[in-house]
């Protein structure tokens, strides 16, 4: 009897999550249409398995987990079929917002594209979706510490790529160390 109620609530929550699922899917696969296919599949799977979802727990995290698993298992299959070549080119077609936006955001988007998949994903889930480290660990099936270090490395790398991690704050660049040790090296020779 409450099942219908439960379904209604569940459906409303799924609807609320759709824009986020689409955004995350797009950032995973770099292709809008594939992203929408992924989201659709995620919703179908979630709906089929809704009886296994514990009410009161985090539906959004559950949906993200399903989406992510679907993406990676499909990609594994696809890889076996198509071999890597094509995938490498097509998987990271930069996706730009409708508004080309400020130069600033354009640069940021490009920097984001250069992060490793793991780092980008962790950073997005924590920094943009607002999941806790624990939730992200659940979603990605890894340790909390791993999530933390991925997020940190992602930030550091972005700061670097964007040139905002100012050199003066961190002391001399290692390049000068290199020069010194090189000199030493040549002295020995």
């Amino acid at each position, binding site marked *: 009897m409450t099942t219908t109620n439960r379904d209604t609530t569940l459906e409303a929550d799924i609807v609320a999550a759709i824009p986020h699922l689409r955004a995350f899917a797009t950032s995973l696969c770099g292709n809008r249409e594939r992203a929408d296919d992924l989201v659709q599949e995620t919703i179908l799977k979630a709906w089929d398995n809704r009886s296994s979802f514990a009410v009161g727990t985090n539906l959004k995290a559950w949906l993200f987990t399903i989406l992510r698993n679907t993406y990676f298992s499909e990609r594994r299959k696809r890889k076996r079929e198509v071999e890597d070549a094509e995938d490498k080119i097509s998987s990271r077609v930069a996706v730009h917002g409708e508004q080309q936006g400020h130069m600033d*955001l354009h640069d940021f988007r490009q920097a984001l594209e250069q992060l490793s998949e793991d780092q980008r994903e962790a950073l997005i889930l924590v920094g943009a979706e607002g999941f806790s480290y624990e939730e992200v660990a659940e979603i990605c099936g890894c340790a909390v510490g791993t999530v933390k270090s991925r997020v940190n490395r992602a930030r550091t790398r972005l700061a670097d790529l964007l040139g905002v991690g100012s050199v003066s704050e961190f002391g001399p660049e290692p390049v000068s160390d290199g020069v010194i040790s090189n000199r030493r090296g040549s002295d020995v020779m």
Partner: protein
Amino acid sequence: MNAKSGPESTRGQKNTKSVPLSKEIQNHIGSRLRAVYGQLVQEPIPERFSELLKQLNTETPNAPEADPSSSEEPRT
């Protein structure tokens, strides 16, 4: 250290000692990230999703424990 990857990563190694980034830089990155990602979140939802949800409702008007044998497509 991965010494043998492009000139870019040479730049990237500047901070490999993982000096914590200042609050200011973290905020800078955070706000850009939310702006970029927010554009994706705010995109209009395609029609297909409202269709899909309607479909879910009519398919299973009140199926409580959806019996697995009757699911429309076998998926693995």
